């Protein structure tokens, strides 16, 4: 006859629980005896026989659940399982530690980001760019509601892009009617690179550049990319040659 007690409290690290299962059997069932601990996959069990060999108690831990079983021998005294099973509150179950969730930082505004850009000097033209961003913010306020305000996520995207590509010269920046920042690097009609920062991660770009194999022809490309992959995507068109030299358009 097998009776089962299940503790559904969750557990964490398997190795810790293995120790706990063993300790539980050791402490609660047969003091001084050495339980046999077995492990099979995610199942860990600790078995001990009572001093009279009338029954065997097994503590099993599997999938975060405790199971207590006692197997009685045919001639066994009718042991009360409660004598063998430790009260639930005494079971050495590992309970998850409460997660310490940090207080969410207050959302950063465009104003904060522009100020930190200027202070940090993360890009060489930080002051010029910050001034331009403030001008655009002012214009967007004046032209609302036809003009959406500067999108903070777009600003984050642009700053991440410029920080990741410190060799870029200062772009000429505008605000699209939707409130996205759009940076432009242009030398002439066949050296043109415009990047719109849709949010902190995604960009949409337009590129006019000489065909790498036939430089007298101009490739015209547009598409979507991410802030961290864009320059790799356009690298075959040698964009860096004219966006990171003095030949490129200055702000």
């Amino acid at each position, binding site marked *: 006859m097998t009776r089962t007690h299940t503790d559904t409290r969750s557990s964490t690290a398997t190795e810790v629980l293995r120790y706990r299962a063993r300790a539980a059997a050791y402490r609660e069932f047969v003091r001084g005896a050495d339980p046999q601990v077995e492990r099979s996959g995610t199942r860990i069990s600790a078995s001990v026989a009572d001093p009279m060999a009338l029954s065997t108690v097994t503590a099993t831990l599997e999938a975060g659940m405790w199971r207590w079983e006692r197997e009685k021998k045919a001639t066994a005294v009718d042991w009360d399982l409660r004598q063998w099973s430790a009260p639930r509150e005494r079971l050495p179950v590992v309970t998850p530690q409460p997660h310490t969730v940090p207080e969410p930082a207050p959302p950063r505004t465009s104003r904060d980001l522009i100020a930190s850009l200027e202070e940090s000097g993360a890009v060489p033209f930080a002051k010029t760019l910050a001034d*331009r961003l403030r001008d*655009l913010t002012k*214009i*967007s306020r*004046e*032209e609302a509601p*036809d*003009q959406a305000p500067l999108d903070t996520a777009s600003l984050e995207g642009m700053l991440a892009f410029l920080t990741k590509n410190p060799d870029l010269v200062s772009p*000429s920046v*505008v*605000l*699209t*009617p939707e409130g996205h920042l*759009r940076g*432009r690097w242009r030398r002439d*009609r066949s050296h*043109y690179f*415009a990047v*719109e920062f849709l949010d902190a991660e995604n960009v*949409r770009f*337009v590129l*006019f550049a000489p065909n790498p194999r036939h430089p007298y022809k101009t490739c*015209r*490309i*547009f598409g979507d990319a991410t802030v961290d992959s864009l320059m790799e995507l356009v690298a075959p068109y040698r964009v860096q040659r004219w966006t990171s030299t003095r030949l490129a*358009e200055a*702000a």
Partner: protein
Amino acid sequence: MRGDPVPDTDHVARYCGGSTIHPDGTVDGSAFRLRKQEGEWENYLSVNWLELLDLPNLQVEIAALQQLFAKKFKKVGATARFATLNCGEVRTHVRSETGDTRELHVRPEPERPHDPSHSGIYGLRPDDDLIADLIAEVVQETYPARG
């Protein structure tokens, strides 16, 4: 007159918000994109047909547009500009520089009685960034939108 194309020799002006004007005075392509109005994409790019105003010269035509926009819109930005375009040049440039040989059309869309010169550039699609940037390349002049 609605539906008849504006002749290639004629010119149109597009109102461009100040945020879309680069520091060097050039107009960004984002000023030439279709926009969503109340959840629906515009069918065409709004412009004004300058020759239809039948005024002596471009300066007077721009002055008329400034007055019109001051009445039509509550707020005209101090840095907003009118960008002038030659219809034929826009059409040719876009047709020759796009892989799909995109054909644009400029047609009158009069809004009587106050805005009879209102017209539309047809053939653009939502998020046509490349076409919009090509149009920006052939802007002839820009003028203040506020008189």
